[in-house]
Structure formats: C-alpha cells, structure tokens
C-alpha cells in the first residue's frame, strides 16, 4: 500500500480537496554524469554457442544520466575502453555504434581465479576504472519448475477494471544444494521470452506467415536471491495460462548468474529503488557503483560486473498443464476488415524494445 494512497484516502474521506500535481525541482545546475553498463562472464562467445540462446559478444554501454523525464540517456561515443586482468593482460573494445562498445574476442572469458577491471578514457580525456572483480564460482543451475496456481488479479470487463481470479503457473527456481559454504552464494535470474505469432491471412508456407518475437520485458526483469546452504525456492514469475501468446510456441530463456557481493548489492539497490513509493520504503539513496574516476573527482554511475553464468530454456507445453487450455478461435482469424498484420507477421504489435524476426531462432523447438 502506498503512502500516497493512504493519504488520498483520508483526505477524500474528509472532503479536503486533496490533489496531486506534478512538481519540478530546479536541478538544472546538476551536471550529467557518466554511466557505465557492462559485464564479462565465464562464458565466451564460443562457449555460449553450446546453450540454446543467441550468441553474444561482451558489450559495454556508455551514456550520461538524463533528466527525470521520459528521455533516453545520451550515448557517449569516442571512448577508448579495455578490460584488464590482474596479470595486466588487456582486451580492447570496439565501438560498434555510438555509446556501444563490443569486445570482439570469440574466446575471451573471465577465467576462474583471475580478476578483471574496466578501464576507459573518454574523448575529453576523463579516465575511469572499475574495481578488480573476480568471477564467483559457477554454480549449478537451479532446479526450475512451475506450479499451477490461481491468484487474484485485475481484468477489464465492460470497460471496468474488476478483480478476478487468474489461473496460471508460477515458475520457480530451487537453488541446488550448496554443501558447506562460508559465504552466501548470490544469484540473479533474468528472463528472455520468445513466442510465435501468426499472420492468419497468409498461407503457412509464406515467409511472413510466422514470426518470432523476443523480449526481455515480458516478465519482471530480474529476481535476485542469496543462499548459504542451498535449497531455497524463489518465485520467478507468474504466467497466466489463458495468455494469448502461448499458442504458437512460447519459450523462456533463464540466465542464471552468480554475482559478486558488490554486484549483488547493486542489483538489490536497483530493486529497492522501485519500491520507493511504498509505506515502508527505505529512505532514498544512490545505487552503489564499482566505477571510479581516475585523476578527477567526477562521480560515475553504473557497474562493470564480472559474473559466472548458466542458461536454461523452458518451452511452455499445454500438455504439462492439468487442465485444458483452449486456443480461442477469435485469435485464429483476421478481423473484419483485416488489419495489415493479418498479411505480414512482422507487423504484428509487439512490446517496446522487442525483436521480431520471420526466421526461427536456431534453438527454436516446435
């Protein structure tokens, strides 16, 4: 329950003319600061080919903080970036587009027992570097499973938001047994969802008949947890079984990363910041960074992580659900008049920042 809701409630009760207005603090004198986003892991470009996920090179994104309005962060181009290990070996990043730098080394990975740091110099000569961090020991994949559940949620009926029971599954991760540990193992799971969509106005053999949409925003963007002995179970997300995206193939890629204590703290801070409106929210605070300025004192935000990671892919199957899931006929035909996407799957509406392709991913299994 948000504090705001409570106060609005009381004031409404008392007819006190409560209102909420946008208010702007004059922060124009505050300088924008550099943000560093990137990580390296114990899985190289080559290693990751063995997993049912898209291959990727390690990247670093540089940008500057933006005003607290709906505005994208401005990329920082022209920087020279390298990752350096504790033996002073270094690898250079290549700028592939403004603000995005890629480490084009197929075999580069964070080796166990070695520490890595990021070193960068902006075009204006400002230098920054991260702390040395060592990849945590790679952990056994959690036991992923789901349970059928009915939760209470909102639905829209006749234009009104109503409370209704929602049938679905809660996907969970049970941490593997960790044996005897002296320190917590810190996990982070994030999810990338891919589902198929059909252009019902086309024949099945048309190249634009079926597309695949991949998004990282289908579910809550991440879950973090720490465990000392293993065995703890964590809810990852809830998936409604009447979701219209389930019928033409639906898969979720789970990335499990083991984090350093500092990086875990970073994600914990990010998570906590999203709860600022709640009644018991902690006092506001800044997210810690492992980056620091070199030769000057300009603050820097973001994090350069060194992690261990594993992947797991799960395909949704109606057969695994104890009850029948109907594919509504209304979803299997074009409307009247038919919309353009009825004849080109690439035009089907999709989430922001998602990727759509009319070619099945290499790991896609029907």
């Amino acid at each position: 329950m948000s504090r705001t809701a409570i106060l609005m409630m009381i004031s409404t009760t008392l007819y006190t003319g409560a209102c909420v207005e946008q208010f702007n603090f004059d922060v124009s004198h505050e300088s924008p600061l550099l943000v560093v986003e990137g990580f390296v892991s114990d899985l190289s470009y080559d290693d990751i080919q063995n997993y049912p996920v898209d291959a990727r090179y390690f990247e670093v994104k540089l940008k500057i903080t933006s005003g607290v309005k709906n505005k994208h962060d401005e990329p920082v181009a022209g920087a020279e970036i390298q990752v350096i290990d504790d033996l002073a070996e270094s690898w250079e990043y290549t700028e592939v587009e403004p603000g995005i730098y890629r480490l084009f080394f197929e075999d580069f990975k964070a080796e166990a027992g070695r520490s890595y740091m990021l070193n960068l110099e902006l075009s204006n000569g400002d230098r920054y570097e991260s702390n040395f961090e060592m990849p945590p020991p790679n952990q056994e994949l959690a036991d992923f499973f789901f349970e059928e559940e009915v939760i209470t949620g909102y639905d829209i009926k006749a234009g009104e938001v109503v409370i209704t029971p929602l049938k679905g599954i809660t996907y969970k991760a049970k941490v593997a047994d960790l044996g005897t540990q002296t320190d917590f193992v810190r996990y982070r799971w994030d999810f990338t969802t891919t589902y198929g969509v059909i252009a019902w106005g086309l024949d099945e053999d048309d190249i634009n008949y079926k597309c695949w949409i991949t998004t990282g925003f289908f579910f809550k963007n991440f879950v973090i947890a720490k465990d000392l002995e293993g065995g703890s179970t964590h809810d990852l997300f809830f998936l409604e079984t009447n979701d219209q995206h389930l019928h033409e193939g639906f898969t979720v890629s789970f990335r499990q990363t083991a984090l350093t204590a500092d990086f875990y703290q970073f994600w914990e801070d990010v998570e906590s910041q999203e709860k600022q409106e709640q009644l018991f929210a902690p006092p506001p605070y800044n997210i810690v960074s492992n980056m620091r300025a070199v030769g000057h004192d300009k603050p820097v935000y973001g994090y350069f992580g060194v992690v261990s990671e594993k992947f797991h892919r799960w395909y949704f199957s109606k057969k695994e659900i104890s009850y029948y899931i109907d594919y509504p006929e209304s979803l299997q035909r074009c409307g009247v008049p038919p919309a353009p996407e009825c004849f080109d799957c690439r035009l089907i509406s999709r989430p922001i920042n998602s990727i759509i392709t009319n070619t099945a991913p290499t790991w896609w299994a029907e």
Partner: protein
Amino acid sequence: MRIIKLGLIFSAFLISSIGYGQEMNRLKKSYLGLDFITAVDSIQKENNVKIFFKPDWFEGKKVETSAAGLTIQEFLNKNVEKDELKAVLYYGTIVLVANNPELYQVEKSADKNLVIIGDKSSKLNEVVSVTGKITDGANDEPLIGARVYISSLNIGTITDFNGNYSLSVPVGKYVIEYSSISYENKPVDVVIKSAGNHDVSLFSGSLQLDELVITAEGQDANVQQRVSGLENMNIETIKQLPTFMGEVDPVKSLTTMPGISTTGELSSGFNVRGGETGQNLILQDGAIIYNPTHLFGFYSAFNSDMVSDVNLYKGGGPANFGGRISSVLDIKLRHGDDEKYKVSGGVGLVSSRLTAEGPILKNKASFLIGGRTSYTNWLLHSLNNIDLNSSAAAFYDMNAKLLYRISDKDYLTGSFYISHDDFNLSGDSQYDWGNNNFSLEWNHVYGEKTLSTLTLSSSDYTVETSTTEDEQEAFEFDNGIKNLSAKFEFLYKMHPKNSLTAGMEYNKIESEPGNLRPLGEFSIIDAVDINNQHANEVAIFLQDDWDLGARLALSGGIRYSMFRRVGADKVYLFEQGIDVLRKPEVIDSTFYNSGDLIDSFSGIEPRFSLRYLLTTNSSIKMSYYRTYQYMHLISNTVSATPQDYYLASGPNLDPQYADQYSIGYFKNIRENQYQFSGEFYYKDIYNAIDFIEGAEILGNEELEGSLIQGKGKAYGLEVQIKKNEGRLNGWISYTYSRSLRKYQSDFEYQTVNDGKYYSSNNDKPHDLSLVLNYKLGARLVLSANFSYSTGRPITVPISKFSYDKTLAALRYSDRNAYRIPDYHRLDLSLTLKQGLRKDRLLRGEWVFSIFNVYGRKNAYSVYFIDSGQARKLSILGSMFPSITYNFKLAK
C-alpha cells in the same frame, strides 16, 4: 460606544431618576460655592433633566465653576474635569462617567472583599502613601522582594528585608496585586481614600492543596518565570484558534509559539528547537502518550474539553522530567467539578465529543469523563466509489479522571485514557492502533513545608497492520511499546524563597519493534518476529527553585539516569570497516535469557535556568540543559506514523544526549498588555540517529546495523510579540532556526554527504505564526491564524539512467539537499456564543471555521514516480469550511 457601555455598567451603582426629555438650555444661576450634589439636584429639578451620578464621588465637593451661561453638560464637565470624570449624553439623560474607567471600575465580586485604605479626608487624585507588610501566610515570616503592583497605573514596588513596602498612589479604586516567587498571587480590590496601611499574607503554592490544580498563568509570567523555554497555553486560548473540522488541537496550537514547528501539514507530531518528533516526551497526567494523533495526524489525541493546561518545556525542563532530549509536553487534565453536575460537548461534521462531570461525594470526590468519536464512514459509504465504499476510517477515545480528597492532607486522582483508530483501505489494508493509559497520583502534605507526590502510570501503545492488497505479499505487522512507571517526588520548602524537589523515577519498558507474518496461504512474505526489547530506566533527581534576591532567581537541578537493557533478546554483532558494502552484515549473535543484562548506560543531566529581573516588567533568562534519551523512535518518514517503533539503546546503539544553551530577553509593557520576548538557543546533539543508505525499516531484525549515529546541532532565534488584552489581541511569533546533522566516518557506508553538516528532516529556517482575535461584540469573536514556514528538506532524484532492462535507475541528490515548497496558510474562525446569562442551563457556541482561506495547495509530501518525476501531494488543497456546535449543560 465604549464610554456609553461603561456608563451603563456604572449606572447600576448610580442614583438614578426616571425621566425623559430635557432641554439643553443655558443655565442662569451660578451655584458657586454650593455643595456640588445639592447644585446638581437643583439643576435636575429646575431644568427637568435627569443626571446619573454616584454621590459618593462628590462628598464634600463644592461648585468651583459658575454655571451661569453654560449648558448643563458644560457646567458639569468644568466641575468634574479634575476628578477625571465627564458628562455624556445618553438617550436624553446625562451620565457622569470616568475618563479613566479602570480607576472607578468596581466588579461585583470584588465588593465583598473590598478593602478600604485610609479615611475620607483626601481628595480625588491626591497622591498618598500606602504602606504595609507582606508575610508568608504559613509562618508569618516577612517576604523579601515580594511585589506590590497596580496594573492600571503601571506602578509597583518591592518589599524590603522586613517585608515592608511603601507605594505612592493617587486616591481611588484599584486592584493591588501582591505576589512573590513561589507564592500564589493575591489580587486585592482596594479603595484608597487617603494614606494608610494594608498588610497581606501570601501562601506558597506548594503548601496549599488547591494550588496543585494548575491555574492560569499571570500575564507577566513570561517575565517572572524562572524556567526558560517554557511555553504555556491555557485551554481558553487554545480554543480560540481556528480549527480544522472544528476540532480543537492543543498540540497544533503550541506550534504557533516560537521554536515549535511541525514537519508537515496536519502532522500532530511536532518538532522543538530542531529536535525530532521522537525526541519529545508527551505526558498526559503523567502517562506517556506515544502517538498523539488520530487518523494519521488529522486529529489530535487530546480531548480539549478535558485539558486544563498545556505546558511545553523547550529543552529538558526541570530535573523531574527526563527520557527525551528535545522537549517535554506536559498535559494535565482538569478535575471534575465536585459541587455541580455538568455536561459539555461538541457536534461537528465528522466527529463529536461529550464530557460529563460532577461530584461523587460533594466536595470530596468528583468524576470527569469524556469521549470523542468520529463518524466518517457514512461519508465514505455515500460516495460513488467502490474503494471508498469498502473502506472505513474511524477513531474514538475516552478519558476519565477521578478525584478523591481523602483528607485535608491527602488526595488521590486516577486518570484513564483509551483510544482506538481503525482504518481500512479498500477492504484489503487494515491499520489499527490504540493507546491504553492509566495513571494514579497520590498527593500528601506532611506539614507546612513538605509535600509528596507519588505517580504510578502505565502506557500501552499497540499497532496492528495488515494488507492483502497483493496476496503474495499479504502480511500482518504488529508493533508497539509498553511502559510502566513509578515516580515519587518530595517537595520541601526549605525557606520561603527556596523550594527543593527530590525524587526518583522508574520506568519499565517493553518495546515490540515488529512482528511480521505472512497473511493467507498464498503469501510469500517471510515471517520475522523481532524480539521484544526490555529495559529499565531509573532516575534520581534534585531540583531547587531558589530566589537569590529580589531580581535573581535560579531553577537548578540535576538528574542522574541509568538505563539497563535486559533479555530475553538476541543481539547481533555486525561487521565493520572497509569490507562493508551498502550495509553491514551480521557476523555473530548473542542470546540473552530473560533478565540478563545486555548493556547499561548512565548519564548525569545538569539543568539550570537563571532569571534576572531588570525591572518589574523585564527580565533576562539563561539556561543550560543536558538531557539523555535511551529509547529511540525509528521512522522512515518525516512525520509521525503509527508504524514507527522504538529501539532501545544497547551494544549497537548508544544513547542520544543533548546540551542546550539559551539566553533570552523578556519585556512587558503597558500593564502587561504587550509582551515581547527574544530568545536565542544553541543545541548540540550527540549520537543523533539516521539511516545508512538503503536501510530497510520494516520487519528488519538487523536494523540496528543500518543505523548510524553522529552529531547534530541546532540553533535559532525566537521572537514573539503578544498583545494580551483588548478587543484585538493575539501574537506574532517568528523563529529563525537551523537543525543540522553530520555523519562522518572512515568508512563510506557510515558517511553522509561527504561528512559535511546537512539539513535534518525538520530544518525549516523561517517559521512565522500570526494569531489574532478580534472581539466583534460581547458574543462574537473573529480569529485568524496565519502560518508560514520554509519548506522542509528533501532528497530528490536529480537524474536517471537506464541499466540493462531497468529503464530508470535514479540518481539522488545529497541527502536533504533540496526543499519542498514553502508552506503558508490562513485560517479564520468566527465564534458565536449564545446568551451571556450565567443562569442559563444550556450554554453553547457556534464555531464557523475556514481552514486554508485562500486555498493554498501546500505540499503534504512530495514523492517520486518510477521515472523520478516529482509529484506534490496536497491533502488540504482547497478552502475548507466547517461548523461545530459546542455546548455546556450545567445548573
């Protein structure tokens, strides 16, 4: 009009003749040398006019100015001018009235005790000498430095070493006020006819049982009080202030005084001289009130119909108070009438109150019982909103006070207080909180010089919160605090000018920081039952109120407090040093069995306040207070909320203590009609508490590791100008103050804002209050209250950045580096009293209030949405009228 009204008053005492119509012809006779009364009689008969006057005033007076050629009025004026009288026309009659009405004003009640000084030989306005001796009524010892004062003439004197006084004063009728420090003031109605003598005995307030009932302060109390930083408001003054929803709020009324402020709109918590809300000790009849609010601060916990007086000590106050470092708010409920049965109450739009009182045994035992209840639910349910229909908001409270006079030397009072708040939002979030307080006070007089008071009290504050809004995160959360207290005070009147108070206080405290439980089968909330904390606090104190001379008075005291935190409890050991990331992790814990000592602290708390009378109506005061606080209020908001809880000092949390210094100048002018005060204070706070970044407040049994302790300082200048009397009265208070905190450490996690001083949550440099009351008529009073203050500090997002799939990670400013908008508001109220007849069975008044007259959208709070954009929440964002009917029913 004023003169005419006064004339009407005097007419009750004048010889009157009935008749109408007169001709203002010029007089033909001179009447020179004739007896004045005889001449006036002749004029009345000869001219068929009626002249109202009091013959006593003119005994022996001769006509000194010829009447020939003058009108009657001219003749009268020329002959009574020297007597400070004049003739006025009033509906066809002539009335002789006083130029200086106070000189002649005689109150009915005073006639019974009217003292005649001298014989009839002197003329009016002749200055004569009045002498006398003032003694202690208990032992006939002369009182040195006692004050003799005639406010209407603004003259006075002080007794010498033998208690003698001599005052030169024009003959006439006055009220002479005899007073001495520590003694009850004694006003005496006198008619001074010529030089004469009048001896007076004064009684020490502490030696008379009746004096234990708090009486209204004298208007010169601000100058005379020994104790610096004491704000006193009697309930009548409080009731005159404009109200929100017609509810009189004693605590909010105090915030119109300098140095006392609130952090937010409608917050019944208050801040004193830069202190936090949890640093105020709030007592109601000796029992601690932990949450002085109803409905999240919309209403005060105190029933104004039952409050007799409100005293707030800015600082520690006398040594018999302790446990908080910022202030002591001592609220006393009045006693029930032990002779008559009375009922009073008030009916408002959303709440009502009813109070009954009367004798149980006439003149021996009495009761006073009162309650308030809200009825907001009918409003909620009548609104076309599903959420509100399924919501509920209500409170009730009840006070009862019993008085039993066991004998001339003993009396007992019992005071009870229960309150309950029930708040349900949309049927899925429930907040319940309540107080259960009880206190028993036994006063015993041992002899002429000795008195003791034993106070036993208990306070039980409990909060229950539950939310099922999100089934997965549904929880119940309980917190609260209990306190059992015993306090014994022994007052010894060593000397008429020196009173010694010694005593001992014991508090047994049990704090429940929180018990968090998942609610419902689907909740994934982890249960956390934070161990209750147990502590014992013992204090011994000695207080001396000593008049060191006619001008110099000292109120000095020392308090020695000891605090023991005991089991059963589990105490964590936290990591420290450079390895700590955001917050320290637990590295070990120790379990203590019930009664086992966990940690102990003690502190010596010297306090003194010095007053030096510069003149009879001006003084300077200085004070120093050291105060210790062992129980700490943990709150993540700037204003008090029910879920705030207390943590005890222990291995991870040191006691807070403060040193406060003040110096002030107090001046009254025009017979105390105007008061001026200016006071500067400086306060050092040690071990002030704040949170490390990212501290989790709710249900966190490791919270102690997320608290940091540092230094605080507060300073300010408080100025007040007050007009006590007259048709227009009121005051203006202005405070310039700063309240700063500093947390500097070798380790980053314990450092805030680079270790520099920064504004505390309640740092509001400018604070202005203007209170005006204007008597429109005998039954009609218009009151206005304007307040202004600098917006409170706030930490704001100054930019954002995206990271991975998180679209807006916020970058915050330094802690409290910005301020919400300034606050200002004007309230008006009009009080219409029903007929003034005293024998009326039902007496009532209508109070029409307009809160926030010009609809200022003051910020209750400013919060931030996900993207970091600010939203200003105004709770009372428009003009808000209300009407209340208050009544008293008494035979």
